[in-house]
């Protein structure tokens, strides 16, 4: 545990002592939410029709740049298993896209973890650490815990600035938000680990993460709400979809048991990636 704590602390120092990295972690989400808030009036126009059609079945939402569109009913007549286009209209565009931004940022932090592991292997510090009296799994865990903490700090930052500066309502059920964020962080870190097992080149890892996350965000409706049925079907089997929809359910004040429909696949994915990592890391040639 002491070794893991020391390596994690070193990871945190590495990020927070480098101003470009700190800038990406703190300034980028702020800029994204700011841009979303600036363009939210346009989005509302897009949603208004849907909202009018479905407002009587929507649950209350208290935030958004255009308060006039918020429903005043507390009835929740939605299916607990899915949120369709009409349901989403009960959220403000700012809520919708901030939730998507949060999930995307968490997933992108996996890129930071992967690059950190690859850099350490390239700089030979990883080899040096392996010469010390500790297991390779301890080193990897330490690095992932450190990056997970960075990711957690970034998530808290996004939630904080979106709530305080842009009045985004994350709902009453903080447990949904917490569980979803923690599970997505775990998945993001485990994806990073698997990627470093497969690839040695930073360029390849960059390309993989950008393609993987942007495509996943797009097909799960995190960029554009109205997608074709085929894309929506494929998108419903992605980590982004489960995390995103779970956050939206939290915003709509669903009960945690209802949100489990999306949380359970996240748990399953995290478990599966963890088991594969446990088996896989022994076969990785760290000596290369």
């Amino acid at each position, binding site marked *: 545990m002491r070794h893991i704590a*020391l390596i994690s602390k070193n990871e945190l120092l590495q990020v927070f*002592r480098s101003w470009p990295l700190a800038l990406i972690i703190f300034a980028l989400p702020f800029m994204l939410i700011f841009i979303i808030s600036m363009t939210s009036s346009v989005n509302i126009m897009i949603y208004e029709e849907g909202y009018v059609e479905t407002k009587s079945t929507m649950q209350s939402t208290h935030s958004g740049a255009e308060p006039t569109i918020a429903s005043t009913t507390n009835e929740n007549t939605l299916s607990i298993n899915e949120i369709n286009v009409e349901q989403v209209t009960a959220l403000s565009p700012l809520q919708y896209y901030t939730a998507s931004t949060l999930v995307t940022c968490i997933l992108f932090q996996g890129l930071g973890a992967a690059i950190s592991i690859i850099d350490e292997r390239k700089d*030979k*510090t990883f080899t040096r*650490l392996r*010469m010390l*009296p500790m297991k390779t799994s301890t080193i990897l865990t330490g690095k992932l815990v450190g990056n997970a903490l960075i990711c957690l700090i970034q998530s808290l930052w996004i939630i904080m600035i979106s709530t305080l500066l842009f009045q985004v309502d994350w709902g009453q059920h903080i447990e949904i938000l917490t569980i979803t964020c923690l599970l997505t962080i775990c998945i993001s870190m485990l994806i990073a680990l698997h990627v470093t097992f497969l690839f040695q080149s930073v360029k390849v890892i960059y390309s993989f993460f950008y393609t993987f996350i942007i495509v996943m965000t797009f097909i799960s409706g995190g960029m554009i709400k109205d997608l074709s049925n085929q894309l929506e079907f494929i998108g419903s089997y992605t980590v982004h979809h489960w995390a995103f929809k779970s956050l939206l359910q939290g915003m709509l004040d669903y009960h945690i048991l209802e949100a489990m429909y999306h949380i359970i696949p996240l748990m399953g994915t995290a478990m599966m990636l963890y088991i594969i990592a446990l088996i896989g890391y022994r076969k990785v040639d760290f000596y290369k």
Partner: protein
Amino acid sequence: MSGIHFKDVIKRFDHHIVVDHLNLKINQGDILGLLGPNGAGKSTCIHMLCGLLPIDYGDITINDISVKQHVLEAKKLIGVVPQHIALYDHLSAEENVTFFAKLYGLKGNQLKENVANALQFVRLYDLRHEKITRFSEGQKRRLNIACAVAHNPAYLIMDEPTVCIDPQSRNHILESVKELNKQGTTVIYISHYIEEIKVLCNQIAILDHGQLIANGTKKELLSQLDLHEKVYIQVSSLMNSAAKEELENHMQVSNVLWENQQLEITLQSAQLILQDILFLLSKYEISVQSLHIEKVDLETLFLNLTSGTSHQ
């Protein structure tokens, strides 16, 4: 039994044998110089010793602790100065040493004391708060050593620690190694610079094709081989048969070549019979214009044993 013991160690990469039945004993308090051409298996041996690579056959023991069975226990006894500078750029010199010392389990006052001692030892204490990005190559190399010695290891493994540095820094590193050895640290020193090995080590092991081809003190190694020195003498006259014959009959001389005014004498030790040669030449009224002795040294020995080959 203290010391490091390689017991019939074999290492294969795919079907290629990199270390072949290696048996080597390093006694406590020694400085072992490990020599060998590129690809001889030196680094592989060290990486097996450090637990980076699994041992395919045989075992390595450090103070009777098997690296194969108790790698973490064995690793606690050693400090490794890697070939490459392996430090964290975002940390200061002191933070780097502290980080590695903490990972070896040092805490509290002992940690502070050892870190300060290690930095003083490599003469970087005054720069302890500086980021290492501002350090020269030599200073980084010295810090690389400080990170490996802060926990006072019983055995220090140094893999080419003086590559790419200026002579001042090199001398300082060599002095540091001697000092550490005086304090009781056993050192395994890998280098391509035979001069360094000659100055530093009291035991020399030469590896080639993964096999130990020579092991012992410098004196022992030189005596094992039937190597000869050569004396080149530029003389005033052309070949004198009588003088040549008398030279050839000398007990210590193996061969005499006399071409034009160039005399080449192959012998056991020039130091012992140089006076005899000069006396003999003067007896035949042959004056010496210039003289050059090609001595057998560690480099000759190394090149002779390894046939000057490089396997990579």
